[in-house]
Each structure stands twice: as structure tokens, then as C-alpha cells.
């Protein structure tokens, strides 16, 4: 009897975490479903938002994967100086704040950007980045690197002996080895990217809009912020959830999360190489580096002019990220220690949820009692923590299992007990995945522009939201300055956390 009571207390943190995640995912969904005005049906505008959401996600996924194939092949068969740096660069968009990248893309492809300056010099009419094209462009910017990494893994999974055999037989490598590999790996990459693009609010917010380029999430935001039509927002949130839930579970099974290019640091000796490899590598590097370089070039000079409101927003962002990271790590650790079905549940539910759907549900829940503005930051902390939970779990849970299988018998034989085992064995040995998970959560949370946009006014705004306000007011220099600050905060937070885990705990 006493024993089962102890067991319950020990797994209490895990249950609390699961309760938080369930409340924010399924709970908010219930609030949304109860409030949705199903009777009035979907308007023509709603249908066009659904259509655009699906089409832009499909176009982004297809473009990312098709472009990724030659890049991944070049990386798979070329060894060169800077290859490691390029692979690392391909991991960077995951922690890059979306709004920073959008501003960088504007500087290259926007109205006064590099591309249009070139077109103008050639006497060609300028192109506009706003609308469907811009949304897909930004999604390719974020997901081409992911697609390259997924497909590169496929390439490196082909044993070197097969290439040798194919070369010796003079067999067509593309037909015999590469096409079958792509048939295995490309569908997974397509699905993952499709799912990511279904729930990418910040891109649609900054580059989309209007009747022809409004996503469902953007329509939710407009329904709440402009029309204050909570019934319609709730209905759209149900639609959004249905869209995500369809692809989520399948996609999650095939997403690798293996740090920044670990395992991708080798090439396979082969006897077919093309000069085009270098062109592809150069193009993808330019595509990733130019927008960030433009941000720095435009933003660094205006850093000194940033107002106190920006620094206050930056401070809020850091506090929100610290709180969210604490919650995420504590929850993910508790769940990893407990293991079992809760891990699978909490590890997958947030992936099917969209931050905007959670936000809408929370808005509906708190609105009758308090002014939503007053809870903007706590709500952002909770949503960010829940959204990062699956990533942290995927890093911590297998690591805890490994430690237990390696050192569990020794700890048991030494009668360490569960607290001493946690303190002396598990935490020290978890330092690396814990630090990496902390870095990811900090960077994601600092750069997040999602639920906070539903709740906050300038008095509660975080740095990404402040930056969005500056862009909306066409104060592009100030926005670029804020972008540089945000970029350094997100990458810096990641680096500070991650480097704490880099030292070898077992050395010396």
C-alpha cells in the first residue's frame, strides 16, 4: 500500500505534464468545438482559405523536395572544405526566427530588393513577393534544408559496396540505386514538409493575406483580431485541427531529429560526378546565406537606434523563453523517467495541434473571466512549452532508456535509490541531450510569432511581434535592426545552452 503511494507521488510530475499537454491540445479543441457555429457553415472566403492552405503546403513540399534532390546528391558524393559548415547551415533554419528570415527574403526578393534591382537594370518589370509566390518561397527557404537533410540520409544509407558493384558492372546508378532510394525517402519528406507548411502562421501573416493568399490560421487571426467573430474563429480552428490531424501521426514517425548533421559528415566514394554538383551547392548556399547577410547589412547600422520599447520586448521574449524552456525540460524529463504510453501521447499530440488553434481555445476559455490581454505572456509560455515538448521528448526519452540499460543494474546493486540515481547517474549523463533540448526550446520560443499575436497589445508584445509591428508600419530599417537583435538572441540562446553540453563529462 505504502509502496503504491510512493509510486504515485513519483509519477506525479509526469501526470501533471501530460495533463497540461492534454488541456492545451484536446482541452482547447473541445472549447473550440463547443463554440464553433457549425450551423452557419463555411463561407466562400473560408473555402478559399482552406484551398489556399492545402495548395500552398503541397506546392511548398513538392518544390522543396524536388530542389533538394540534386543538392543532396551533390553533398552525398562531393568532399570539399566547408562541407561540414554547409551541412550545419542546413540545420540552422530550424532555430531561425521565421520573421527574421521573412525580412531577409524581402531584402533579396522584395520590392526594393536585390532581385528586382537586377531586373530593373535589365529593363524587366519587377516582381512582387507578397501573395502565394512569397509564401511558397519562404516555405522553401525553411524546408529545402530539411528536405536536403532527409534525402541525404537516404543517400548515405546506400552501402558503399553497392556503388562499387554498380560501377564495376557499368550499371546506371540513378536507375539501379538512387531512384529506389528516393522512392523510399521522398514521400516521407514530402509529408513532413506538407504538415509543417499547414501550420506556418508567421509566414502567412507576413507575406500572405488578401482573398487569394489567406491561410486558415490567418483567417482565424483575422476573425479574432479584426472582426471579433469568435464563432467563426472557433469553426475555422476546428477545420485547421482536422487538416493537421490527418497528416500528423504518419509524418512524425519518419521525421529524424539527429542534432545538427550528425551522421551526415561522410561521403561515399563513387565514380560518377557532375560539374552541376557545384552549381547546385553554390545556389543553395546563396539562397540560404544571402537573406541573412542582407539582414545583417541593413540591420547592424540601425541597431543603435532601437527604442526602449524594442529592448523591453526583447526582455519579455527572453523571460517567456526561459519559462517555457523550464517547463518543457522538467516535463519532458519527468515523462522520460516514467516512460510508457504517456510519452507517446505527449510526444505526438502537440504535432497535430496548431498554436493558433490552442490560442483560439484559450481565448474562448479565458475571455468570459479576464481580459485576454492580461494573460498574453503566460499563455504564450504554456503554448510554447507544449509545442516544444515532442522535440525534447524525442531527445531525452531514448537517452534515459540507454542510461538505464547500461547503468541500471549497477545503480540497483549499489542501492542508490531513485533520487540518488537521478542526481548522480541520470542527470550527469543526460547533459548533452538536455542542453541540446534546452537550446532548441529557447531558440524556438524566442523566435515564436504565433499565439502571442492573438492576445498581445504593444504593452505585452514580444520581440517578434514588435518586429512585425515595425514591418507593418514600413519602418524597415528599424525592423532590420530588431531582426539582427532577434537573430543574435535566438542563435545565442541556442549556442549558450548547447555548448554547456558539449564538454565530455567522462573526460579526465
Amino acid at each position, binding site marked *: 500500500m505504502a509502496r503504491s503511494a510512493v509510486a504515485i507521488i513519483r509519477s506525479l510530475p509526469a501526470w501533471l505534464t501530460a495533463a497540461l499537454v492534454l488541456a492545451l491540445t484536446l482541452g482547447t479543441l473541445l472549447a473550440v468545438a463547443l463554440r464553433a457555429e457549425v450551423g452557419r457553415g463555411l463561407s466562400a472566403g473560408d473555402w478559399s482559405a482552406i484551398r489556399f492552405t492545402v495548395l500552398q503546403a503541397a506546392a511548398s513540399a513538392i518544390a522543396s523536395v524536388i530542389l533538394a534532390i540534386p543538392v543532396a546528391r551533390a553533398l552525398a558524393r562531393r568532399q570539399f572544405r566547408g562541407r561540414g559548415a554547409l551541412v550545419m547551415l542546413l540545420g540552422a533554419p530550424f532555430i531561425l526566427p521565421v520573421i527574421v528570415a521573412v525580412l531577409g527574403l524581402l531584402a533579396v526578393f522584395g520590392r526594393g530588393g536585390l532581385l528586382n534591382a537586377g531586373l530593373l537594370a535589365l529593363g524587366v518589370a519587377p516582381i512582387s513577393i507578397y501573395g502565394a509566390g512569397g509564401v511558397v518561397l519562404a516555405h522553401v527557404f525553411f524546408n529545402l534544408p530539411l528536405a536536403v537533410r532527409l534525402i541525404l540520409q537516404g543517400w548515405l544509407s546506400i552501402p558503399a559496396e553497392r556503388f562499387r558493384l554498380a560501377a564495376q558492372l557499368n550499371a546506371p546508378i540513378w536507375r539501379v540505386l538512387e531512384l529506389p532510394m528516393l522512392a523510399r525517402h521522398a514521400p516521407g519528406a514530402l509529408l513532413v514538409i506538407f504538415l509543417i507548411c499547414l501550420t506556418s502562421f508567421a509566414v502567412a501573416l507576413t507575406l500572405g493575406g488578401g482573398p487569394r493568399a489567406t491561410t486558415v490560421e490567418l483567417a482565424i487571426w483575422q476573425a479574432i483580431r479584426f472582426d471579433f467573430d469568435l464563432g467563426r474563429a472557433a469553426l475555422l480552428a476546428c477545420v485547421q485541427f482536422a487538416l493537421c490531424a490527418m497528416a500528423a501521426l504518419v509524418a512524425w514517425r519518419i521525421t529524424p531529429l539527429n542534432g545538427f548533421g550528425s551522421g551526415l559528415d561522410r561521403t561515399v566514394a563513387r565514380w560518377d560526378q557532375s560539374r552541376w554538383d557545384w552549381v547546385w551547392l553554390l545556389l543553395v548556399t546563396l539562397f540560404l546565406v544571402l537573406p541573412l547577410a542582407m539582414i545583417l547589412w541593413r540591420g547592424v547600422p540601425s541597431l543603435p537606434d532601437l527604442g526602449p520599447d524594442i529592448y523591453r520586448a526583447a526582455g519579455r521574449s527572453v523571460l517567456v523563453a526561459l519559462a517555457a524552456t523550464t517547463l518543457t525540460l522538467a516535463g519532458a524529463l519527468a515523462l522520460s523517467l516514467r516512460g510508457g504510453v504517456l510519452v507517446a501521447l505527449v510526444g505526438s499530440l502537440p504535432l497535430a495541434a496548431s498554436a493558433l488553434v490552442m490560442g483560439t481555445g484559450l481565448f474562448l476559455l479565458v475571455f468570459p473571466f479576464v481580459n485576454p490581454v492580461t494573460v498574453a505572456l503566460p499563455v504564450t509560455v504554456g503554448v510554447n512549452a507544449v509545442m516544444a515538448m515532442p522535440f525534447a521528448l524525442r531527445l531525452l526519452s531514448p537517452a534515459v532508456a540507454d542510461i538505464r540499460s*547500461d*547503468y541500471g*543494474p*549497477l545503480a*540497483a*546493486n*549499489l*542501492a*542508490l*535509490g531513485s533520487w*540518488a540515481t537521478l542526481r*548522480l*547517474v541520470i542527470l*550527469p*549523463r543526460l547533459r548533452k541531450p538536455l542542453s541540446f533540448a534546452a537550446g532548441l526550446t529557447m531558440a524556438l520560443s524566442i523566435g515564436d510569432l504565433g499565439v502571442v499575436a492573438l492576445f498581445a497589445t504593444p504593452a505585452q508584445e514580444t520581440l517578434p511581434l514588435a518586429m512585425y509591428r515595425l514591418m507593418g508600419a514600413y519602418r524597415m530599417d528599424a525592423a532590420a535592426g530588431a531582426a539582427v537583435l532577434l537573430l543574435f538572441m535566438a542563435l545565442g540562446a541556442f549556442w549558450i545552452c548547447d555548448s554547456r553540453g558539449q564538454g*565530455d*563529462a*567522462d*573526460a*579526465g
Partner: protein
Amino acid sequence: MLTLDDVTVSKGTFQLRANLQVPPGLTAVIGPSGGGKSTLLAAIAGFGPTVTGRVIWDGDDLSGKEPGQRPVTMLFQDHNLFPHLTIAQNVGLALAPRLKLSVKQSAQVDAVLTDVGLPGLGGRKPAALSGGQIGRAALARCLLSDRPVVLLDEAFAALGPALRAEMLTLVRDRMAQQGRTVIMVTHDPNDARSFADQVLFVAEGVAHPPLKAAAFFYDPSPAAQSYLG
């Protein structure tokens, strides 16, 4: 005296039966691989497999006790030291599972490290030590623990012949001859011949009662004969 009273251990479809007593001193467990040597040790230490019958130490029934609550200290084939803790911390775990060592306990740790030939190496981590030194550090922890039963599950299998002989000498002189009950699984019958007081032969799911080493090798049973070749 360690008694296995009509013990049956089930591990999947595999079963090991043991009805025997192990006297103090060094007992070598030998027999063909897959015969159940490690299973026997796991049953005594309280790991994993289902046990029917009773494991008794000095009249005290150990069945149902957690591994840490048994009078047993064990060395495994690997993972005997925590790589992120220093040698002194690893050894100190025998005295203070929460690693809050008193001055006296720290002195004990230093003394036992000197005993096993590792003076002054307490501040290092296992990665900075050779395989033989790691083995000695793990032995030092067993020496320091006051548990009367010591189980060695091929703990020195990875070492070369000279180092292994050195470890076995330490085990014999510092543990077995001090009255502890040492049960050691080994692949090499010569280890048993040179160092063991008793030999416990395990084959085909049966652990036979230990025999005096000289008697075992002088007149082996037919099964033991076919194993020894």
C-alpha cells in the same frame, strides 16, 4: 552460507534449476555458454528473471528483496564504473550511496585505492585509466563494501592473461581468504584450476552443487568431461 533451496529460474523458454549450498571462499562457475552461468548470478543478485524456490543467506530469505537490499555486491562484464564520476567517487559509492563522504570515509577510499595499486589516482575519471586500472578500481569498490557475497560475472574477461591473473590474485587474497563468499563466472577452466576453492558446474539448465576444485578436475563427471575436453 549461501543456500539455493530448490530454485528454478525462468528466462523465456530457458529454465535453470539449482539446489545447492555455496560455502565461503572462491567458487568458480564454469560450463558451456548458454548453460545458465550468468542466469545463476542474476538470480542471486535479484535481477530480472522469475525465481521459484528460495535464495537464503545465513537463514535470511532473500526472495523478493530488491538488488540493493541483498547482501550482495556484483561486478558485471562492463559498465562497472560510472564514467562521469571520478574513481574516488565511484569507489566511495560503496560507503555512501548519496556520495556525501565523511573525512574518515574519504580516508578509507584513499587507503583501498592504495591497496589495489592505484595510489593518488582517485581524482581521475575512468576514461583516463587503462583497462587493468579500471578493473582494480571496480574491485576496490567491492573490497570497501561490507557485503559478504561478491559476484563476478566475467568481470575480467576483457583483460589479458597477466592482468587477469593479477585481478584474481587480488580477489583470492583480499576477498575469499578474508571469509567472503565469492562466486565468479569464468570462461577459462584454468582460472578455476589456479585460483578457485570450489567449482560449480552449470550445464543444460542445471547448476550442480560445488565440488572441491581438486576433486572436480581430478575426476570430472561425464558432462564436465565433455566440456573440459
